[in-house]
């Protein structure tokens, strides 16, 4: 089966500085690819480019066998869904927040409640449906943000460090729930995390990024046993104990 996303010679610059360089990366259909790397590695930039929220200076991206340039921007964005580090909920109820993307897509009104209810249940927040977004804890808000992305049934789901703003207890619970959901869902997902240990649990494969460049893609054990270069090795050494 062909890859859902094919990236070749991608370059993003900020002023004179190169902030992202990916010579080649394929994301297979149904695969969860975890992006790891230190701060400033270009992980979020890569997701923003793939969500068409940031235009690259050069390079070619093919999505579902069509070059990105041939996709209408809105049509393409509606094939994807993006979850940011902070939940960024709107001043409305939880159910209304989750329904937002469906309304943008003009999904029939009578179909919306069932889809919203399903994903509220999947993330264990059914009881919060009528609660205002401002009344939620950080963990609850991030669950709403994830439900709001999953309900759209995107071909490509882009998750940018969804646990980073949570306290350890909320983080551990959400991590467990999301890992189980991703394993059962068979959706194409790119998820950013700082931590190789998390990446190895969440992802089928791991992509290591350092200094704005994609350095290595492989299984966690491959990366641990044969780091591609000194900078990847140095990044791995800074991490807590890595479980295969």
């Amino acid at each position: 089966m062909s890859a859902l996303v094919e990236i070749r010679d991608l370059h993003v610059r900020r002023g004179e500085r190169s902030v992202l360089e990916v010579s080649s990366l394929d994301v297979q259909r149904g695969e969860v690819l975890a992006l790891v790397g230190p701060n400033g590695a270009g992980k979020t930039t890569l997701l923003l480019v793939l969500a068409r929220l940031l235009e690259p200076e050069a390079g070619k991206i093919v999505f579902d066998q069509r070059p990105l340039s041939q996709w209408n921007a809105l049509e393409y964005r509606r094939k994807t869904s993006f979850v940011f580090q902070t939940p960024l909920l709107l001043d409305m109820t939880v159910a209304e927040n989750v329904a937002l993307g469906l309304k943008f897509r003009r999904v029939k009104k009578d179909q919306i409640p069932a889809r919203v209810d399903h994903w509220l249940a999947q993330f264990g927040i059914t009881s919060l449906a009528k609660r205002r977004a401002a009344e939620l804890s950080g963990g609850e808000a991030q669950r709403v943000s994830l439900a709001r992305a999953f309900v759209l049934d995107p071909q490509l789901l882009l998750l940018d460090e969804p646990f980073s703003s949570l306290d350890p207890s909320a983080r551990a619970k959400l991590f467990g729930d999301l890992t189980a959901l991703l394993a059962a869902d068979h959706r194409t997902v790119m998820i950013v995390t700082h931590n190789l240990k998390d990446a190895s649990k969440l992802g089928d494969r791991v992509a290591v990024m350092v200094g704005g460049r994609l350095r290595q893609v492989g299984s966690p054990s491959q990366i641990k046993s044969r780091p591609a270069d000194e900078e990847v090795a140095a990044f791995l050494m800074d991490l807590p104990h890595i479980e295969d």
Partner: protein
Amino acid sequence: MSIDPEILQITVLSLQVSVTATLLSLLLGLPLGTLLALGRFPGRSFLMSLVNTGMGLPPVVVGLFVAMMLWRSGPLGDFHLIYTPAAIVIAQIVIAFPVVTGLTAAALQALDPGLRLQLLGLGASRVQMIWMLWREARLPLLAGLMAGFGSVISEIGASMMVGGNIRYQTRVLTTAIVLETSKGEFNNAIGLAVLLLIITFLVNWGLTWIQQKGAKR
């Protein structure tokens, strides 16, 4: 109790003129304020400075320039608008438009900048994204509308200069108060002043009610 027909006519005209000017300012100011807040284009800072300066424009200066434009020998003289209610509306738009524009831009800039990307990342079109941002900033946007209305219902210089304070034609509450005061008819002036305060209060009460209803939702 009966209401003096002349006072009723002045009150209705005041409301008509100021509400029309405020709504037209909203129609122009909301898109421009949004463009200033969200757009990135050359001259944006300069335009923002102009709008901010315009928020403090003295009404007499506005009256002077609008009168020059509408004067019979002026560039828009052929429209015969000077000393008509339309002239007052134009002058009041010049006063309220920068207020609505500036406060719209400030309200939208106060939102989390990530919200725009998040809405687009959920599949919003540009129009849907802007609509949701307006919804999210509805409380400060309504405050901007109230400030715009307040700036025109209470102004006198421009209305006097371009309207001429003509009885039954262009006399509004503020110009009527000035006239009664100049004649030494303080009781009449105080009555009109109280009426102006009541009208201003009622309109702002209505807008505040809408605003706070939005806050509780």
